[in-house]
């Protein structure tokens, strides 16, 4: 301790010296510190040390030790690019699927329906609920649950993305998957077999489902599960405890199937036993005299021959049908012609709607008198009243659109802009149309509760109804040009909606046009919502070069500028 210092009774506190260094003391206090440190070596040293510490801290803080990570250097650009990639994939898959379905099955069927004399307006419904993969509500429920959970999870993650860190998001995903796994029923193994000739041999037993693909597919043994067969020729002489889902040129079932047959084939012959129902999209369907179907039979085809035993109802859309076997329920037929031979026995009602009256043998045993109705083609069906109603509906749509445009003009405009991005809108529509509906229904029943589910359902319905308005507004804008004012926008929407109403009533094309409009419009609404929720800062932020950053933002580096 120096002599001078010994004269000072008390050292200054560290906080006082720090405040002095930081220039936070008032003038008088600062002068006191200044005077004191002139005579007190210890306090002077501490003052200098604190000042040096401040400089060290500032230097450590300001050093450019890290460059801006690529993720945030061009984060907006990255989001846009990844979105395009996702939409591309979604849309590509959807187009491929629709194209394959259409060219492989729908188009030939449409041709047959046309020959059979009835239109395709109900085709979508029939495809969904009576298609190959529809296994009844109960069976489909598990699948719906999984899809709904996935959709809900996605929505939740999206909604709370700001608050979820990557680690917790991953944990959440794994937890959800674990939860799904925990509640899922133990799945049996699925086998895949491929080759020119694929067989399940006579003494072979397959536990679980099997996917078979090849030229010739034979099931001679036992499959304890479903069989999915994709081939030229399918022959089932063994035993299938589940369903047969069959895509082939020809199929023959002489064995036993405990479940259902769903077939998309050129011709199929059933001479064995089917425990439940058959749904067939075929050119030729034959139920052999030895064959039997436990439940119902639904046919879309050119020629149907029923010699065997059918436990319940028969529903057929065909060009020509011949019934000479036993039908435990009723018969509903629609087509060009129908023959009921002497050996036929039908316990329920028999209705036929066709171009000409059915040929019914006097020896046939019918539970009730045959009812025949001449087939009226769609053009004749639609009288003046029908078109008046369509005009009323179009007007209602325009009115609804007017309300929407008036209540939220900015959002409406954004949605119409989004619809211009056709690929993305379609892609999103494919996801949103079924996804949100399923999620809403399941939410009502299972997960969150009635209120959330019903609200979601209502929003979905509003979006469904608004789809035509959105697409109409865009088409109107394409025809009449852009505008940002309300009434011209409504005018363009009205023109578009009227045009769409006309297009959606063109025979054959109309149903598909309706579907396209719904997908496009709903997708555009979802895209508009997404863009609105997406915090877009600057759509064209240029990337920052990944080298050393040029000029940093230099905060003041001097210490103690109060």
């Amino acid at each position, binding site marked *: 301790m120096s002599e001078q210092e010994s004269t000072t009774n008390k050292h200054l506190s560290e906080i006082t010296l720090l405040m002095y260094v930081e220039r936070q003391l008032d003038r008088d206090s600062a002068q006191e510190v200044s005077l004191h440190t002139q005579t007190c070596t210890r306090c002077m*040293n501490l003052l200098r040390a604190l000042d040096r510490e*401040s400089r060290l801290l500032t230097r450590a803080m300001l050093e450019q030790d890290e460059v801006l990570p690529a993720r945030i250097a061009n984060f907006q650009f990255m989001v846009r690019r990844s979105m395009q990639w996702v939409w591309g994939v979604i849309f590509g898959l959807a187009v491929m699927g629709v194209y394959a379905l259409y060219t492989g099955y729908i188009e030939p069927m449409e041709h047959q329906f046309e020959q059979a004399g009835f239109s395709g307006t109900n085709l979508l419904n029939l495809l969904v609920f009576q298609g190959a993969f529809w296994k009844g509500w109960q069976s489909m429920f598990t699948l719906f649950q999984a899809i709904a959970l996935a959709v809900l999870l996605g929505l939740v993650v999206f909604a709370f993305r700001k608050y979820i860190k990557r680690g917790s998001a991953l944990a959440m995903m794994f937890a959800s998957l674990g939860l799904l796994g925990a509640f899922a029923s133990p799945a049996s193994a699925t086998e895949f077999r491929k080759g020119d000739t694929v067989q399940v041999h006579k003494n072979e037993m397959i536990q679980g489902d099997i996917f078979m693909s090849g030229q010739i597919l034979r099931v001679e043994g036992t499959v304890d599960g479903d069989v999915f067969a994709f081939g030229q020729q399918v022959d089932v002489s063994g035993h299938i405890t589940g369903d047969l889902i069959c895509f082939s040129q020809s199929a023959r079932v002489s064995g036993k199937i405990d479940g259902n047959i769903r077939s998309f084939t050129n011709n199929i012959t059933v001479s064995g036993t089917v425990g439940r129902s058959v749904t067939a999209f075929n050119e030729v369907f034959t139920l052999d005299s030895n064959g039997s179907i436990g439940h119902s039979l639904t046919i879309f085809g050119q020629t149907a021959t029923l010699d065997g035993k059918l436990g319940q109802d028969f529903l057929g859309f065909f060009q020509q049908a011949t019934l000479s076997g036993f039908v435990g329920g009723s018969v509903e037929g629609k087509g060009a012609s129908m023959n009921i031979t002497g050996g036929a026995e039908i316990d329920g009602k028999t209705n036929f709607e066709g171009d000409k009256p059915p040929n019914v043998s006097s020896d046939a045993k019918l539970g009730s008198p045959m009812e025949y109705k001449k087939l009226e083609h769609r053009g004749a069906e639609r009288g003046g009243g029908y078109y008046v109603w369509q005009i009323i509906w179009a007007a209602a749509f325009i009115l609804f659109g007017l309300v929407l445009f008036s209540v939220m003009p900015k959002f409406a405009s954004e949605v119409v802009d989004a619809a211009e991005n056709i690929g993305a809108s379609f892609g999103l529509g494919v996801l949103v149309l079924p996804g949100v509906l399923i999620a809403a229904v399941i939410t009502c029943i299972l997960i969150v509760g009635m209120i959330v589910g019903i609200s979601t359902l209502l929003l979905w319905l509003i979006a469904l109804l608004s789809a035509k308005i959105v697409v109409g507004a865009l088409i109107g804008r394409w025809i009449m040009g852009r505008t940002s004012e309300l009434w011209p926008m409504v005018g363009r929407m009205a023109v578009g909606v009227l045009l769409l109403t006309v297009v959606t009533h063109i025979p054959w094309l109309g149903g598909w046009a309706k579907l396209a409009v719904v997908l496009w419009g709903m997708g555009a609404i979802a895209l508009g919502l997404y863009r609105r929720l997406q*915090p877009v800062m600057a759509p*064209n932020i240029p990337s920052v070069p990944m080298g050393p950053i040029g000029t940093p*933002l230099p*905060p003041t580096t001097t210490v103690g500028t109060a």
Partner: protein
Amino acid sequence: MSAPGQIEPTELIARARAGDTTAWGDLYREYAPAIFRFCRRAMPTREDAEDATMEIFMKLRDKLSQYDQSRSFTAWLYRVAANHCWDMLRRRKVRQGKETEDVDEMPLEAPEPNQLEKLIEERTSEEVRKALDRLGVRARMALVMRYYSDMSYDEIADALGVRRAFVGVVLLRARHELRQALGDTSVLAVGGTR
């Protein structure tokens, strides 16, 4: 608060406020690196810093209309960043149920000047940055606000929600905590990125 000689991007800000997306891009390019480094010092992990940087600029978009052009843009930007980071840290702390403002209880014994000088001389900037990771969130935040963005005591008090008179104490405690972390050689030996 802006650096002497630094020109405030008045025109750029005006264009960004008018909705010019190119101006937004330029603003982001100019200021994002500095804000990222600020967040990197303030937040516990690199990912947190990246997220915080993006969120700050998103927030900026909404708040730019509130910016008073007669004042320093840089200072205002740092204030937004500091508030955002502190909010994030505080929310996380509440969520984790940790009220570890621990250092409040630490006795503040003045260091021996020579020892402090020695410590400062021996430690590099990198070691200081690593030692920052060992500090409590408030201590670190206070140091970053003061020595990175040169915020005034008033601004620090406002951001941390403490009285102005208490800011000096917070900074002093933070320095003590830092010295302790720097003195712990095992800490410095750990290395690696946070």
